[in-house]
């Protein structure tokens, strides 16, 4: 055969071999193919033998082409081997990574707990110390010591639950102030989170709710310091540097001057309004004196946050009563460790 004929023949052989390797489905056939296409009796081998019939340049040229064909067959067989191997592996391991878990799922933390802890963390970073006080209080700590004597009209602002033993359920966490002031050394810088109770129940009031009280007593504490701490807290809480905050004169018997704090709020229609968020003020001198602190030397500020209100805004909860129904459809929405 001429060198041209040999080349054409080689192409045919190679083409046929590569096509049949593609079709191979198992190792056995792969081994057979190796013998068939590369073995001693293979067509390729007999074409190799024809090399001796060629001369000079033709011999070298054709030899090169035959070698190339051999290499390409070898690599095609290797590739097939790999692909068979990976297919075989898959057949043995039918693990389905998309299956649902058979573990019991994690539970949930009550949103009040989460908002409470989130707020406490902010205040602790601002170096407030956490304390607690009793929920069952006496009249002295809840009212009298906070400058709310018996006949004071402000008692009407607090619908109080009284117990048969003469005590009461505290109407605000401000009742913790007096104990803290009497027990601790100045400077006093505390927050007091906890449950409070009022005889009130409608769409915007529950008979039990949560507050966080804050108190700072030292020399030269000013209203501008109070504005600063409230600003920092609210902007941190809502994670909004540009939050609009306004202080508005108000009245609490235990602070003077007193203020109510509003934040700018957009309702779901996009309308802007001010929303009352907390009450605060400079501790009333009568309260300081009740706690044996000299009001001509020391001054201080105090504030009280409603946790439910904060939670509703932060988490977008519209119905206050959901907090105390303990319905899993509500509770299970709060699975994250942090907010």
């Amino acid at each position: 055969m001429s060198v041209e004929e040999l080349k054409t023949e080689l192409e045919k052989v190679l083409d046929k071999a590569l096509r049949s390797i593609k079709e191979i489905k198992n190792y056995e056939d792969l081994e057979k193919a190796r013998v068939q296409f590369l073995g001693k009796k293979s067509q390729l081998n007999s074409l190799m033998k024809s090399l001796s019939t060629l001369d000079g340049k033709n011999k070298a040229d054709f030899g090169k082409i035959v070698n190339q064909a051999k290499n390409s067959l070898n690599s095609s067989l290797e590739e097939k081997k790999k692909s068979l191997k990976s297919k075989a592996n898959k057949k043995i391991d039918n693990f389905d990574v998309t299956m649902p878990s058979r573990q019991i799922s994690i539970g949930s933390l009550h949103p009040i707990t989460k908002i409470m802890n989130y707020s406490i963390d902010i205040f602790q970073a601002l170096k407030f110390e956490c304390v607690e006080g009793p929920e069952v209080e006496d009249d002295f700590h809840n009212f009298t010591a906070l400058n709310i004597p018996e006949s004071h009209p402000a008692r009407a602002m607090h619908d109080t639950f009284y117990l048969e033993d003469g005590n009461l359920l505290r109407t605000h966490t401000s009742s913790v102030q007096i104990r803290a002031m009497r027990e601790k050394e100045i400077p006093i810088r505390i927050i007091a989170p906890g449950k409070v109770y009022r005889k009130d129940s409608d769409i915007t009031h529950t008979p039990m709710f949560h507050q966080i009280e804050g108190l700072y007593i030292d020399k030269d504490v000013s209203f501008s310091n109070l504005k600063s701490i409230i600003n920092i807290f609210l902007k941190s809480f809502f994670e909004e540097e540009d939050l609009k905050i306004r202080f508005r004169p108000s009245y609490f018997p235990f602070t003077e001057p007193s203020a109510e704090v509003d934040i700018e709020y957009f309702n779901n229609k996009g309308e802007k309004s001010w929303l009352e968020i907390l009450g605060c003020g400079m501790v009333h001198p009568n309260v300081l004196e009740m706690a044996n602190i000299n009001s001509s030397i020391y001054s201080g500020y105090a504030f009280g946050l409603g946790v439910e209100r904060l939670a509703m805004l932060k988490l977008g909860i519209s119905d206050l009563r959901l907090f105390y129904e303990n319905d899993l459809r509500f509770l299970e929405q709060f699975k994250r460790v942090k907010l």
Partner: protein
Amino acid sequence: MKFTKSWLEEHTNINTSIEELCDDLTMAGLEVDEITPLKNDFLIDVDLTPNRSDCLSVTGIARELCCISNNYSQKKSNAIKEKSASCELKNLKLNINNKKICPRFSYMFLENVEKNSETPKVIAKNLKDIGIGLVNPLVDILNYINIDLGQPMHAYDLDKLKGEISIRFSKSGEKFKAFDGKEYELGEKNIVICDENGIISLAGIIGAEHCAISSSTKNALIESAFFPPNLMANKARELKLQTESSQRFERGVDFDLPKNALILLQNIISKYSLYKFSDIEVYEDKNHLPIPHEVEIDFEKIRKVLGIDISNKEIETILSSLGCNYDKKSRKARNPSYRFDLEIHSDYVEEVGRLFGYDNIPIISEKIDLKVNKNYLPISVTNQIKDYLYKSSFSECINYSFTNEETSEDFDWKNVPYIHHKKISNFMSSNQIKLRSNISTSLIKNIEHNINMNPRDSYRFFEISKIYGNSCENILTCVVYGNKFDESWMSNKDKFDRYDMISIVEDISNIFGLKKDDILYEIYHISRNEREYIVLSISMDEFIEKIKNNSQERFRNFVKFPNIRRDLSFLIDTSVSYKEICKLVEEINVHSLKKILLFDLYEGKGIPDGKKSLGVGFIFQDERKTLTHEVADRNIEKILNNLIEKFNIELRK
């Protein structure tokens, strides 16, 4: 306090828009609750704080606006003068024994009351706009003056009064029929006004039915008095009889108003030529009238407490705008009679801050000394436990602290019957009768609610709250119900049992470096509505005490020699607790025994009644050398003999 813009304009010139007007009021502490547009007018509702009773009148609001800004100015035309009488003063015998209860009482007589049947149109419109219904011309005018000036007055049908008029405290149990048609039983210390026949009015609250003004009234007695706020406090509330009048008296009415109100009445009567009126008569005891407070103004302190830069002069201007009498020499300020809330220096600090504008006060952070961090243990421990429980598939609940009369509530947290609850004396609903003595009942109700709303195979709830039994205790309670696992393809349908709760106790104690025997807990079943709940309760107070006394975590060197394990499987009486077995083994004092391990418990089929089969592993280790099998065998022999001797155990093959 409701009023219309046009009514306000009778007293003040307003140079701002309605929005600015309301914003100015709000930012001065007179919070505008609602603005309702009316025809060519606006109805404004201001939510007043209890200290600002001086603003419970249109005059008061107008006066306040003039302090706030130059955009508002008093109308000068409003000065009114006392008129000369158009009828003779009748003889009124008045007897006020206790001058304290009514230090100022003024009155006037009217004749021809029946002749006029129509309320002047302007007055009728003003009242209607703010939602006060018309009664009859005279009463309407008094109501108008009440809102306009802030002085409540009362009109009596003079011909129905008899003899001497006296003012005294009520006696407990005294009955009184008011003109709202209802009979009230009075307590002690209500101020009552009486004639010879009995009570003619509950002072400052409401008049009696029998002598009220009617369409047939010919002659009237008009009362305009001052009753001290401390004696009026809570009185109307106690009787559930709050009126426009009582609301003002209990917060405090300007004691200078009673006569002015009667003068205004004279002027209105003359203007509309309504009735004949007498001269005004005033009985008073100045010793019992409120005294103005004198306060020395400390300018520096005002600047310091507010943190603002304001000159003495600016402060003085604010004081005079408030109507205070300020003496430059002594630096003393005296409050006007209508601002009796200004008693002490702080009150003036607030006024300066308020009129300076809270928004204008700068924001300055305090300088604080950094101190060593103090971790408040109860909250940090509680949060770590909550964290563990929620990651162990429990959902946290928060329930109300009070509860109802159901017998299921009559247990303490250890499930021991308890009935001496803290009772609430003024509950609103039957769900608030007493403070709960356990948490489990609340959590069971939560589970029942969820079984109805979202049924599933497995429920795990917990709550950490204070409960009130013999004392107030902080308790953690976990309640589980149903299968251990939610429905899944694993098809494990095991039910919860009490042993599941033990692992929780163990985990919680281990988290804080304690053992489960260190803490106070109870595990029990509760059956309710044919469902079996499993409850775990832990005393948090006790737990936190234990943690306080527990030293911090430290590394201990561990033994590097290998250990040898020997297992025993045996039958033992069911009455013997695992703890007793451990205790006995520990008492034998085998030095190389390092750990006891329970690997099997079996009761039931194949095991004789009253017996259980236990598989216990014993791990031996020598701290100084490799332990030999001979020693281990000797040790296990010793343990076995003791167990046989003490508990009569029977080895299983």
